[in-house]
């Protein structure tokens, strides 16, 4: 992509500069200590070279003062690295508000992506500049890893569970998408690109690519055909099973005591392995749907349940995922906080 020889990767996300800053700090410290030590070594080696075959230098006793100095100083420096690294990481992992959601399924050896608005892509991901994008990812087979060097972020994509990551692209362009966890024969071919577009172009792209149903709608159909409605009500209002409307993002009290946050991972588990965390007040009657639904379909069910927000929930409304809105184009064009229309 670049004609010159790159020594820093392209920088195209809201936190890539933060990672770079830390990286340069670390490089600086490394350079300093490497030079300090090799410089001292070279100096000593020359200065104190053996001059006569039988010379014996005077032995030294150690020095507790020096030992303390070179224990404490590196420790303090190391702690700056730790705190800095951890705080950037924490930012990077705290899930964002009002993000566009994209569902990602990795399989040997391709990436299948679906936007909340229904567009499907393979090995390509189109995203707008200046919007937070949250990926909800799982794998159909082995562990993969979604890695975009230009965004300085990666996360494993693990079968049997959801992992998430997010980023906010800052610069239009086409960037590498790599699979960074070894996954078998064609691991190095499991690559693609992330295409960052100006919001307007992105809207165009979205409207030019409708076609498939949104995951939530597809999930709704599944919900009916799989018979979830028989227990959870025709539109998730509840029945023999708990109401699903407005569940997403709330705290669920469990029969075993304790609570759990109803995130995507929990919803997924509730469908695949309902007995693992029983909702308080209900018996273990829900059958497992393991093996009956594919990862894609599970994501659709989850998307549907997420889209059910009830009127009377007490907790703040969960992520206003774009899926809830009828018109895909409108949903994206009207981001809730300060839209970045340039």
């Amino acid at each position, binding site marked *: 992509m670049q004609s010159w020889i790159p020594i820093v990767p392209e920088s195209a996300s809201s936190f890539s500069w933060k990672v770079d800053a830390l990286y340069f700090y670390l490089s600086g410290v490394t350079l300093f200590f490497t030079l300090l030590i090799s410089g001292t070594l070279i100096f000593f080696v020359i200065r104190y070279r053996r001059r006569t075959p039988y010379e014996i230098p005077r032995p030294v006793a150690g020095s507790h003062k020096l030992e303390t100095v070179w224990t404490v100083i590196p420790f303090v420096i190391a702690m700056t690295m730790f705190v800095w690294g951890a705080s950037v990481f924490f930012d990077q*992992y705290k899930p964002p508000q009002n993000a566009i959601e994209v569902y990602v399924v990795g399989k040997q050896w391709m990436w299948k992506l679906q936007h909340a608005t229904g567009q499907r892509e393979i090995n390509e991901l189109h995203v707008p500049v200046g919007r937070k994008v949250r990926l909800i990812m799982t794998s159909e087979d082995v562990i993969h890893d979604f890695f975009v060097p230009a965004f300085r972020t990666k996360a494993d994509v693990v079968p049997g569970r959801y992992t998430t990551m997010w980023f906010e692209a800052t610069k239009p362009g086409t960037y590498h998408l790599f699979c960074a966890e070894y996954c078998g024969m064609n691991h190095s071919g499991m690559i693609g690109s992330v295409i960052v577009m100006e919001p307007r172009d992105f809207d165009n792209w979205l409207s030019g690519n409708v076609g498939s149903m949104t995951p939530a709608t597809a999930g709704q159909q599944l919900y009916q055909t799989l018979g979830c409605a028989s227990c959870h009500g025709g539109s998730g209002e509840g029945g023999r099973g708990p109401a699903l409307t407005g569940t997403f993002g709330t705290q669920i009290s469990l029969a075993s005591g304790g609570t759990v946050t109803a995130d995507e991972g*929990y919803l997924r588990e509730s469908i695949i392995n309902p007995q693992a965390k029983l909702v308080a007040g209900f018996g273990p009657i829900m059958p497992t749907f393991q093996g009956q639904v594919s990862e894609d379909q599970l994501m659709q069910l989850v998307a549907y349940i997420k889209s059910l927000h009830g009127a009377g929930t007490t907790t703040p409304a*969960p992520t206003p995922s774009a899926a809830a809105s009828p018109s895909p184009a409108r949903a994206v064009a009207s981001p809730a906080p300060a839209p970045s229309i340039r």
Partner: protein
Amino acid sequence: MSEHIVSVRVYITIFLVLLVGTALTVWAAFVDFPFGLNTIIAMAIAVTKATFVVLYFMHVRYSTRLVWVIVGSALFWMGIMFAFTFADYFTRSRLSIGT
């Protein structure tokens, strides 16, 4: 270091204690203790039994400090393995959602 010869009386006592412990743990398993105490009770009995075996049958009670350290460190390292692994499992997914 001359070694200590444990008397037969001690061996027999320990043997009986172990048998009683086994009976006790079987009995306790069928009692429904409150607060999920069953697991703790079962483990407490097992640990007690194991301690008796280690101290008397295996003569640790009469052994050098080094043997104590070895036994202790084995348990300590197994503790590390458990503690850090569960530190992961029990704090998973706290951050996984924005509300």
